[in-house]
């Protein structure tokens, strides 16, 4: 699928073909996409724990369930528990100097090994790494970027996916031996969509002019209608929901799975 169409087709899919497992190779593609995401300080922020529902015994699956996360876990054949590792600042000077050596961070932009050793690390990054709010902000932000790549990689491979609130982190930690330094971010549900991949149509979004600005924050971004038309043709902008049959689609899926209507 072309990039623009992947972005435009991504939806939160909540009805999965519970009977159809996700191929391991497709999960690997998602993980590699996450690993290739933009990341500051070239730090290894994200951690992911991949769990297949059908590999879990009943006791473990029951332990994962709670009143807000039960149907989701039944329907999705694969869960990815996303975390960031709070130890990500470790090794930062070495990683940055490696990038200097590889001509990624270059003198043209002010970078040198001396700057990393004498100023950046001791005076800025190390003190920042000792402020919990800063660690959490960076960890959440950078891991979110990685997860976004994984979401789009799933869509590109014909999978459905959805991010779910990270409920019961203590239970998950104990069940799967999650290290103490891992901070929970999202649970990503993965499977083949049981609903139409368009899931009733594209979600509402405000026009660019309400969100983005040009030159100063008093000047809204003015859309070029030609670009908008191009993006419609390319599939980034798609037909908005709800499709006429959406309510019936949800009703039928709910009945198939015995879910509340």
């Amino acid at each position: 699928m072309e990039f623009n169409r992947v972005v435009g087709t991504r939806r939160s899919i909540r009805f999965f073909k519970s009977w159809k497992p996700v191929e391991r190779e497709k999960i690997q593609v998602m993980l590699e996409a996450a690993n290739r995401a933009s990341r500051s300080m070239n730090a290894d922020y994200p951690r992911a724990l991949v769990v297949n529902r059908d590999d879990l015994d009943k006791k473990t699956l029951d332990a994962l369930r709670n009143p807000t996360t039960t149907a989701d876990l039944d329907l999705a054949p694969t869960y990815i528990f996303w975390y960031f590792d709070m130890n990500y600042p470790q090794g930062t000077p070495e990683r940055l100097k490696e990038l200097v050596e590889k001509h990624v961070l270059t003198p043209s932009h002010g970078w040198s090994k001396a700057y990393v050793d004498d100023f950046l690390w001791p005076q800025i990054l190390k003190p920042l790494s000792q402020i919990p709010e800063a660690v959490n902000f960076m960890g959440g932000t950078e891991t979110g970027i990685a997860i976004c790549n994984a979401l789009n990689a799933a869509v590109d491979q014909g999978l459905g996916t959805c991010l779910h609130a990270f409920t019961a982190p203590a239970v998950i930690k104990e069940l799967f031996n999650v290290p103490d330094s891992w901070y929970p971010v999202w649970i990503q549900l993965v499977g083949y969509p049981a609903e139409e991949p368009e899931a009733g149509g594209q979600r509402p979004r405000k026009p660019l002019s309400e969100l983005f600005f040009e030159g100063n924050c008093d000047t809204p971004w003015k859309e070029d209608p030609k670009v908008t038309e191009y993006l419609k043709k390319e599939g980034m902008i798609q037909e908005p929901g709800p499709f006429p049959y959406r309510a019936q689609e949800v009703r039928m899926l709910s009945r198939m799975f015995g879910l509340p209507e």
Partner: protein
Amino acid sequence: MYDNILEFPSVKKWFESANHDSDTQDEQKRLLDMIANFCESLDQTPDELIESCLRTTKDGDTAISAKGRKNVQQAIDDWVTSQGLSGHQAIVTANTLRSFLIHNGVFIQGPASIQ
């Protein structure tokens, strides 16, 4: 048993929100009997059942009570078992009761029937 359980605001809200108003008379009776029997087993009215899932915060706002919801979740499972139901039918029945909670603003999930 209630003369007209639809007089309870929570039941009326459920029927309107879930479009049960347009169901057949038989289906409406089945649903109303179900919620009535469940509530009777708890010795609560339908409105009291909803209230048991809510709490008042320090700021005076209404919030979902995790404890109350957990208790009702268990009560639903127990009631369905007491009706001699199992498998798909048990799941559907329990989720019908959850639908009553959901349409009254109580976020709750039960199992899906995937076997």
